[in-house]
């Protein structure tokens, strides 16, 4: 046996190319540190500087990622993480989600008397965790990044500290989330025990080289990692935590969770699935088990999400269940990714579009909510269109997009997902998907009915829309309609991004 070599000099330096790939991550971290310093600097009122630094950080990092998305893939830190189009595509989603969450929260925090600079710091930290999570190639890095993201979100969920419901949500999320993290970590440990490596490509290599040594331990570890991910994306039957948490959390945080968190979990899920050889590389027995687990979860998620959303009167809760339903469509995209010509591109595109429309809807909900997130029931929306025609129009676009009605982006995304599922011969799932999607139209349209066709109750105050929220809503509308009318570009981008995996 050769002597142990622990110091590898080439790992101690970063080449110029490698450094360039890391710029978005460094930017976000530097911005976060700067925000921390500004929040404790007693001489100034921290609100504006921290807000501006945080937004600027997201913008700069977004521009960096936009440049890097064209670049070639680059393995970093001894293969522990990778910088390719895929990771930078997801970085864009996370940073955009963080940016518009910050924009949407600015006045909200003032009104709720929660204007603490830590809020922005935590959003940035969570975004950093998400970015590293989808770039991770190693189960250790993946887990630490996941925890970085989750810890920040636990705190953000409980940010309204004096509110009982909010505390309950944070506590519930913290305990269940930690349990899920523990399951994932134990699964990773078992995989390490069975294969001798935490690096996902080495795991695949070991499995390919020793097909006979595949033992129950490996299967157990693998299923535990899978269940951990399904919990994070809130697929049925691991969805019980979600409605309560979404309802209890402050509205902008809920928006951040439905977009950033979900995209991060899905992005990582797809990367890990592909890297361990989903579709090709591992034995067909594992393939079919994996397929069966995802199949059941996908069917249940679409059905449960849509049917329970029908009965909800609270908008936040309704969108929580609708978010579960969308998880089902996303799972369908992943499930059929290996056997259709478009590959995982429809699924990846769906994540982006879902993030855009949901983020927009939550920025509007943030505006509509009053003290303590009350007044978010359906009848509180009665006649909103008379007072706020533009807000109602924007809300309608987002809701129609979620329902999948042309010419919005939701239609293009749903169409592609179902199309690729038909190619992959998942006919029963497509039938379930289309039918439950038809059901979902009812509860999305009901909001529209309340906004446009009911008389207003009482005389609620006229809302002021801040510049920042307006900016956020306008950009989301732009994406939703642009992609809806001209989806070609987005499909090409998604294809290229998936190819880099």
């Amino acid at each position, binding site marked *: 046996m050769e002597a142990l070599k622990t110091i590898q000099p080439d790992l101690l330096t970063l080449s110029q190319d490698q450094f360039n790939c890391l710029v978005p991550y460094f930017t976000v*971290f530097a911005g976060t540190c700067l925000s921390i310093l500004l929040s404790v600097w007693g001489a100034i009122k921290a609100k504006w500087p921290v807000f501006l630094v945080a937004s600027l950080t997201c913008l700069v990092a977004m521009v960096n990622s936009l440049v890097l998305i064209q670049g070639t893939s680059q393995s970093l830190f*001894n293969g522990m993480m990778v910088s390719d189009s895929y990771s930078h595509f997801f970085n864009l989603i996370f940073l955009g989600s963080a940016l518009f969450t910050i924009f949407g929260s600015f006045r909200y925090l003032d009104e709720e008397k929660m204007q603490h600079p830590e809020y922005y*710091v935590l959003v940035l930290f969570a975004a950093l965790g998400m970015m590293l999570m989808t770039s991770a190639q190693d189960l250790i890095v993946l887990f630490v990044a996941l925890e970085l993201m989750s*810890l*920040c979100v636990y705190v953000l969920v409980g940010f309204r500290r004096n509110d009982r419901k909010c505390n309950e949500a944070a506590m519930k999320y913290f305990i269940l989330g930690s349990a899920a993290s523990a399951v994932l970590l134990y699964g990773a440990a078992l995989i390490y*025990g069975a294969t*001798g490596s935490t690096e996902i490509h080495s795991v695949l290599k070991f499995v390919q080289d020793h097909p006979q040594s595949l033992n129950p*331990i490996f299967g157990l570890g693998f299923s535990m990692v899978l269940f951990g991910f399904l919990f994070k994306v809130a697929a049925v039957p691991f969805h019980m935590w979600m409605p309560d948490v979404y309802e209890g959390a402050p509205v902008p945080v809920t928006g951040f969770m439905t977009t950033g968190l979900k995209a991060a979990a899905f992005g990582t899920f797809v990367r890990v699935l592909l890297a361990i050889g989903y579709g090709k590389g591992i034995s067909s027995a594992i393939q079919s088990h994996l397929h069966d687990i995802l199949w059941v979860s996908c069917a249940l998620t679409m059905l449960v999400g849509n049917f329970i959303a029908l009965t909800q009167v609270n908008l936040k809760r309704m969108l929580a269940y609708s978010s579960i339903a969308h998880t089902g469509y996303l799972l369908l995209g992943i499930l059929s990714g290996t056997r259709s010509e478009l590959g995982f591109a429809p699924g990846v595109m769906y994540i982006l579009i879902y993030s855009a429309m949901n983020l927009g809807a939550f920025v509007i909900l943030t505006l509509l909510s009053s003290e303590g997130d009350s007044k978010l029931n359906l009848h509180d929306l009665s006649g909103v269109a008379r007072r706020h025609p533009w807000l109602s129009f924007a809300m309608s676009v987002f809701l129609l997009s979620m329902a999948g009605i042309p010419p919005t982006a939701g239609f293009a995304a749903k169409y592609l997902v179902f199309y690729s599922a038909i190619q992959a011969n998942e006919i029963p799932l497509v039938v379930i998907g289309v039918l439950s999607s038809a059901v979902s139209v009812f509860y999305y349209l009901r909001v529209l009915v309340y906004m446009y066709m009911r008389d207003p109750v009482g005389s609620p105050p006229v809302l002021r829309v801040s510049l920042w929220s307006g900016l956020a809503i306008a950009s989301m509308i732009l994406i939703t309609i642009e992609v809806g009318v001209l989806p070609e570009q987005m499909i090409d981008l998604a294809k290229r991004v998936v190819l880099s995996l």
Partner: protein
Amino acid sequence: MNISPFFFYGFGGIAIACALLVILGKSPVSSAFSLVMVFFSFAGIYALLDAHLIAALQIFVYAGAIMVLFIFVIMLLNADVPTFDLGRTHLGIRIVAGSISLATLLIFIWAFKETPLTAPVAQFTPENIEAAGGNTQVVSELMFSEYLLPFELTSVLLLAAIIGAVAIAKRKLAAGRS
């Protein structure tokens, strides 16, 4: 590598028994002390595995620093009395939960029994580590070269956790004011 079964099962048994005491104990103080015992037995198992550095760190950091903090907090908060009562859960739920846990346990036992002991031998055998300068040196060299990213990332994670803790604790003052 040969691990003495007597010590392994001894430490393992103590760890499991004390871990059960942590969650079943009525007073926070006894739970905290059971947790100390869990950490000590883990340290014993690590030492059996020739990971002496980790065993020592386990005692210093977990059993020492973190548990002292725990106990200080319990003392300062005077949380001796249980502050919440979960009440009795429904019998049916208990039976279902119990049988599911039991089934999971059985699956694990089955999986570990079925797995042949052909764990891949990595390069880090005790002899190799000895030749390369011992446990501490190998761990620290690895940490700052091959595992640099997770190591640095962990410090970012801790920083975020501190900010989060401040964000939660600070507003207690604000709550008292309003």
